[in-house]
């Protein structure tokens, strides 16, 4: 490998990595936390006996899952200003990723809730618990344990999907890479490099996932 190429890799690595630490990671973590809250609420709406709540939840999931995330980003960032709603790039990205991942997470959590035997809820009722108490103390802890592996996969996917926010001017890793390419004209090396950094993030998350899975209490 030529020394110029090595120099380019060494020089660009901290810049790309820094934009990942400053933008990609916070965007992923913040969006995923919001998505988890949305996902739990939507899943509980679908789990409830209230047809109105179920209807709203299903409509939301239908809309979000049926449209590409890039289109959703464009609607929020480029479309909303047409009706007077102007949101900065980073909050726009957080909003879209939270709503998008919220819909997918809700389906994972809903399936996990449905996997809990009906008798668990009935036993909670029989000792006098209310529905919210039964959900918070008995059902959700078991459902989250089931949902944890697929939710972990979602967060890993989300790290990679954040590359799309370069389309709405958020300076994350891909945009930083493209900026460097525009002055160095070395797309092959630099795209390989940013791919490698995404791989590092994904590997770290996979490692964290396996550690956290082991932290859950063991029961069958």
């Amino acid at each position, binding site marked *: 490998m030529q020394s110029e190429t090595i120099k380019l890799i060494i020089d660009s690595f901290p810049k790309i990595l820094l934009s990942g630490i400053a933008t990609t990671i916070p965007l992923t973590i913040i969006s995923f936390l919001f998505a988890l809250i949305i996902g739990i609420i939507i899943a509980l709406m679908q789990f409830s006996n209230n047809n109105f709540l179920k209807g709203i939840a299903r409509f939301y999931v239908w809309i979000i899952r049926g449209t590409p995330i890039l289109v959703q980003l464009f609607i929020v960032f480029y479309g909303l200003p047409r009706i007077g709603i102007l949101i900065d790039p980073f909050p726009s990205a957080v909003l879209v990723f939270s709503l998008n991942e919220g819909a997918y997470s809700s389906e994972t959590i809903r399936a996990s809730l449905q996997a809990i035997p009906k008798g668990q809820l009935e036993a909670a009722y029989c000792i006098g618990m209310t529905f919210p108490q039964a959900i918070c103390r008995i059902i959700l802890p*078991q459902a989250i344990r089931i949902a944890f592996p697929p939710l972990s996969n979602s967060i890993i996917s989300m790290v990679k999907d954040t590359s799309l926010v370069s389309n709405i001017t958020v300076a994350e890793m891909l945009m930083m890479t493209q900026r460097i390419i525009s002055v160095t004209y070395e797309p092959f090396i630099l795209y390989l490099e940013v791919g490698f950094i995404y791989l590092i993030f994904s590997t770290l998350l996979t490692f964290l996932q396996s550690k956290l899975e082991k932290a859950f209490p063991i*029961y069958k």
Partner: protein
Amino acid sequence: MLTVKSLNKKINSQNILNDINIHINKSEVVSIIGKSGAGKTTILRIIDMLDKADSGIMTFNDKTYNLQNLTMKEILKIRQNIGFVFQDFNLFLNKTAIENVMEGLIVVKKMNKNEAFEIAKSCLNRVELNDKYNSYPFELSGGQKQRVGIARAIALSPSIILFDEPTSALDPELVDEVLDVIKNLKNSGMTMIIVSHELHFVKNISNRIYFMENGSIIEEGETDKIFNNPSNERTKEFIIHSMKNYE
């Protein structure tokens, strides 16, 4: 103590319960017997508000409730005074034996952890599970699980305990350990309604029996009368047939 009058329930236009009338006095043990699908479990589930009745009146602890129109407050009040022991245990899978027993005391009775722990300990000791406090349900045998279920029910000091086929999911050699616990509860004066196919046990423990068929109570009476001199031909057939199967 507990009276159910004119209880009716339909599912998909099929009558599940027809004009059921049941009464139980304090410290009495009443058993409901009959073939599978007769509606025995449904009665228990309606009494503990797990299923909704189409019509019926229930008087419990001197208060009368219209089973068709109950508020959430009434439902919670009824449930907090009734213990329920399930056929398939339904222990909280994410909690140890002691946590299963403590849960209602902490969340429903609002006790602090130490107080709840002491009560839970004494309940588990009462069902002879002193060495299983920290075992998860998957680490327990069927009989032990059912005894945790009973400890969970008695921990809340209910006025009455409903047993829904408490031994049906157990291996034959584990049945006695559960039945012994229920006998001890009777000796302590606990009011109980038992749905069971263990007719020998039902005969030994019950003060009165209700015999059901196709959603209706065909016959009721003192245990001796039902077992030795039933007035209904169907009761007689059922008892002779069931007792023979156990011999």
